[in-house]
């Protein structure tokens, strides 16, 4: 499986964020998108996720499931964690499992895997920022999708959480997954760098 972008232009609010961007990542590979604030890291991820329309160029996934689009084979983990405080931890995760569909796993197991096994029936409102992030990460586990688009995934996580997350990413890569992560801090895992901005 290979994810590649050719000559991508991105314009937001009339301002050119980046142009002529090329990248590629194959199965088992991490592409770390680095660069200063405003260089378009988040825009690139949202563009791959199909949430932004590129002004030029294209992104292609080769070797995926033919009848599905790229966004339907991607997980997007953004700054906002897509959790409803009124629902319990379990309800939040099982909603996303049912809604996103495809190959799904067991909700309780995934919650235990991210260290939330004790809190399954508590309202998500009671979780701390780090725990909310863990719950978002559980979403990556409960629904199997080959491409992970992660925006600052380790922010708000404590050291134990970061170690846990590195393990989760390793498993995903070993299963032939692709990870594209926008990050300031080192991910703790071997990655190819895509440097954004500055080089115009």
């Amino acid at each position: 499986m290979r994810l590649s972008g050719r000559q991508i232009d991105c314009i937001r609010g009339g301002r050119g964020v980046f142009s002529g961007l090329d990248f590629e990542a194959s199965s088992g590979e991490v592409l770390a998108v680095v660069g200063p604030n405003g260089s378009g890291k988040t825009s690139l991820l949202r563009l791959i996720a199909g949430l932004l329309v590129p002004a030029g160029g294209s992104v292609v996934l080769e070797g995926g499931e033919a009848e599905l689009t790229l966004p339907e084979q991607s997980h997007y983990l953004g700054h906002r964690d897509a959790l409803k405080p009124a629902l319990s931890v379990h309800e939040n995760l099982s909603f996303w499992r049912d809604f996103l569909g495809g190959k799904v796993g067991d909700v309780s197991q995934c919650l235990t895997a991210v260290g939330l096994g004790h809190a399954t029936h508590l309202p998500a409102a009671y979780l701390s920022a780090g725990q909310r992030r863990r719950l978002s990460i559980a979403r990556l586990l409960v629904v199997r999708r080959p491409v992970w688009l992660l925006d600052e995934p380790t922010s708000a996580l404590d050291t134990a959480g970061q170690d846990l997350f590195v393990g989760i990413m390793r498993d995903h890569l070993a299963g032939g997954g692709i990870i594209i992560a926008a990050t300031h801090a080192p991910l703790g895992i071997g990655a190819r760098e895509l440097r954004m901005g500055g080089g115009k």
Partner: protein
Amino acid sequence: MTLIDLANPTKFLSLTARVLPWLAGATAILLLVGFYQAAMAPDDYQQGATVKIMFVHVPNAWLAMFVWGVMSLAALGTLVWRHPLADVAAKAAAPIGAAFTFLALVTGSLWGRPMWGTYWEWDARLTSVLILFLMYLGLMALWRAVDDPSRAARAAAVLTLVGAINLPIIKFSVDWWNTLHQPAAVLRMGGPSLDKAFLIPLLVMAVGFSLLFVTLHLAAMRNEILRRRVRSLQMMQASQQAA
């Protein structure tokens, strides 16, 4: 047991556990006696048997206002002394007050059907009670809208006090509005002089319903304290085993 002791939620719970059965028993007895006397009361020469509706209508209408008074006192406790038990008292009273107000409205309307020929007349009293009912519902909506109980308590306290000041103004305006449109006064409930045969069952019922309120209020306050305990324990559970 001093007042300070009462203010401690745990002490309050133990007191409630001891008092509630007696209160419930007294309430049941008074309401049964009141019901018997109401059934035995003679018909009114003007209103016929519908006068019996008064025996449940008047206590409910009086409680509708009394409960708002209780909540206003609790609101003062919340705002001035910032006491959590006052929050609990205010929150527990709202649904009970709303239920009594609803009953006052419905019994009033059932009394009005044979008297006026319609279920609803925009009579000054009924209309004021209807507005009171809306305010109760608004207050309950406010309690439900905010997840953090102490924040909700302060907002609800402000609304309760503003309501307490506003209620007489609303009553006055509605009276004025009503006389403006309807110079002919409709037949009013009760009347200035009340025969003893009606007064005694009415009083017994009034005391009975008041006791019912006290009983329900204490029980609801106990539930609310337990609910808060559950909430804080859940929050502790969320953080305790985070590692």
